[in-house]
């Protein structure tokens, strides 16, 4: 490679990768995905197939804006969002766990219902259609962390985000500790892997499942809160844009581990961010940017599964030759 090419390569890298603004964008875009991923994680670890994340994010976003508008206070909006998550999670749990509704049907129904209901409520309550954008909505303010922000290079990367971004990171750590170091976390994992094992030892399996679903509601609603209050200060129809499902994908890549969800979400945020960059630089036609997250998800799922299979095969062929 001659010096010209390597100079070009370096400048590309600088522009798209090692660029503070870009990395900040990556972290921001990863946030709702991290939370959606946790939503999928907590239920899948408990052995529940939860596809209602999308709907729960929508409700969270809507009620956060409604709450902020009503009380002129972003934190109360946040609270409203969380409460909606608990409510939807609770209803989901009630119908599918207790009333024996087919869990996939319930998930589909909740997502479509959330879509219709939020559009309806936007018109009914705010008397507008499409967006709720009003100066009366108070968004969350960026938080400037005193010592961190002064660290060279890393400083701007760690400080200056709104609350949900930090909350997502904290929740990743908390969830990890919860799953592996607390009794309830162990019980939850047992319920997910072998519910009979848990049941015969006196663990209340239905209660754990219920709690897991409600927790997933909270996680998802936090993703919604971030979308509407944490960045843009407005609500748009269909704001979740598939993040509920991308969260499921991210949980798969992360193999059900919180740290895996975190890293996969970062990757996703990176791709998302790159897309915007490329659009700004007019390197890709417009609508293709929007497609990027979804195409990326499909590709990533494919690659991940293929590589897992290859790895398993290789490992076992090695083990075989030992045994023979």
């Amino acid at each position, binding site marked *: 490679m001659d010096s010209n090419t390597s100079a070009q390569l370096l400048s590309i890298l600088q522009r798209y990768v090692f660029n503070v603004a870009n990395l900040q964008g990556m972290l921001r875009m990863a946030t709702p995905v991290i939370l959606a991923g946790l939503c999928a994680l907590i239920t899948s670890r408990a052995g529940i197939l939860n596809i209602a994340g999308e709907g729960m994010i929508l409700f969270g976003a809507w009620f956060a804006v409604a709450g902020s508008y009503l009380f002129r206070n972003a934190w109360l909006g946040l609270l409203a969002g969380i409460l909606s998550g608990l409510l939807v999670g609770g209803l989901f749990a009630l119908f599918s766990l207790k009333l024996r509704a087919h869990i996939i049907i319930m998930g589909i129904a909740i997502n479509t219902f959330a879509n219709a209901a939020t559009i309806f409520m936007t018109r009914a309550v705010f008397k507008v259609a499409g967006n709720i954008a009003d100066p009366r909505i108070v968004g969350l303010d960026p938080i400037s962390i005193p010592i961190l922000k002064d660290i060279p290079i890393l400083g701007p990367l760690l400080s200056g985000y709104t609350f949900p971004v930090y909350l997502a990171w904290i929740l990743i750590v908390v969830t990890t500790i919860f799953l592996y170091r607390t009794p309830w976390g162990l019980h939850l994992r047992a319920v997910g892997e072998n519910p009979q094992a848990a049941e015969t030892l006196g663990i209340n399996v239905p209660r754990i499942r219920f709690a897991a679903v409600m927790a997933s509601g909270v996680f998802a609603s936090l993703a919604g809160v971030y979308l509407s209050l944490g960045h843009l200060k407005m609500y748009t129809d269909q704001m979740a844009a598939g993040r509920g499902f991308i969260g499921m994908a991210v949980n798969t890549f992360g193999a059900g581990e919180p740290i895996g969800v975190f890293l996969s979400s970062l990757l996703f945020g990176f791709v998302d961010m790159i897309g915007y960059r490329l659009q700004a630089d007019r390197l890709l036609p417009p609508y293709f940017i929007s497609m990027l997250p979804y195409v990326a998800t499909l590709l990533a799922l494919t690659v991940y599964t293929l590589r897992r299979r290859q790895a398993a095969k290789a490992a*076992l062929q090695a083990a075989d030759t030992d045994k023979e």
Partner: protein
Amino acid sequence: MRGIRKVFPGVVANDNVDFSVEEGEIHALVGENGAGKTTLMNVLYGLYHPEAGSIHIRGKPIHIRSNSDAIHAGIGMVHQSFKLVPSFTVTENITLGAEPTTSVFVDRKTARDNVVRISEQFGLKVDPDARIRDLPVGVQQRVEILKTLYRNADILILDEPTAVLTPQETRDLFGVIRSLVAGGKTVVFITHKLREVMEISDRVTVMRDGKVVGTKATKDTNPAELARMMVGREVLLRVKKEEASPKDVVLRLDNLKVRDDRLLMSVRGISLEVRAGEIVGVAGVEGNGQRELVEAIVGLRPAAAGSITIGGKDITHQSVRVRRESGLACVPEDRYVRGVALQASLQENLIVDSYYKQPHCGGGLLNLKEIGDFSNDAIEVFDIRTTGKDVPAFTLSGGNLQKVVLARELSSQPALLVVAQPTRGLDIGSIEFMHQRIVDARDKGAAVLLVSAELEEVMSLSDRIVVLYEGKIVGTVEAAKASEEGLGLWMAGITEGHAVPHSRGEKEALDA
């Protein structure tokens, strides 16, 4: 336990049962499948609520509404299928639900120390940090027993504990039981194997059709009497059959190798021939490759190496349908998953291997009249108890469903019939029916491969017996010359005086 009554939809599983156990004894609870033994113990352990009856421990009445209540009362149960979490360690499994804690966290050190302590106290050696999924079955059972001891169980209920053990592991288990009893525990031992009852128990209670038939001191009775009590009539311990006259080879396996779900080689080079008109029985403790062997023959699992030939045709890499077209029929081990589609109708279940060809199908269209006649005939000939051919399969009992499977598989006049665990979970009448039909198929010229974990079944039905151990055939013998002792040794991997090299897990289990 007094006057226990437990009802499930359509059946009274426990009908006014009185059952009592004395402190420090080993009490066997026997009966055929469906007699109500496990149900009764599940009531005791709090898994089921009885409609009527009472439970007293040491004279005091107790009310058991859940597993926790039972555990509090000092009752512990080891079930037939282990209730262990595969990815957890031994310690985590034993302490599950009762973990020692410091504030909100699990106190792993204390947990581990506790486990080591009781492990030594009761002489049940386990590695506290090993993960369950890496451990062999015998060790897993020890973990299950330790679970109960960790919770200070005084009364231990063991449900069919020897189903998954070799004769030698069974002896080890008996040693453990005796030492537990010597240490003051009481053991209730559910089984349908009468020799074990005679060997280990102090008293035995027999149940039949949900009722207690009687309780006797073991030394005052014998297997024949117990069998009579269990069944209510003379039991045919051997199927009546003619001498076999085998003809051409139908099934040939040549150095067949098959991987299991974890991609480990579970069938490690099997060569076998089954001729028309003979029954070859494959004996062995479950988990030695039987499942994968059958799946490979049927075509549900790919062969990693070697070949499978049916009637001279190499079908090693052919689809299930091609194999069936070549004369294969199979009564699968997984009756409810593979053998039938529970949500489909009886008729739909009967035609899955014939719906696409004459006379059931013509030009892509199903011939509903032909199919209907076929179904009705099958119901009649096989005496399937049902209200009609269009009812969903889940309305039928286990025995009747197995008849549906048989009816379908035999209807193609197969050249090769593979039968896996055919009588698991069936009542005595259905068992006799199945055995007779299998012999009939043989007499009509089919080559029959019987795979069963029930040694008595293999010995009574087969003309020739092979024993499977760790994926290889370790012995072959004419059925007439076979002995349980000899087969048992082979099943444990011991051939001609020297042991077959064990996998590490097995060795630990035998050394302990």
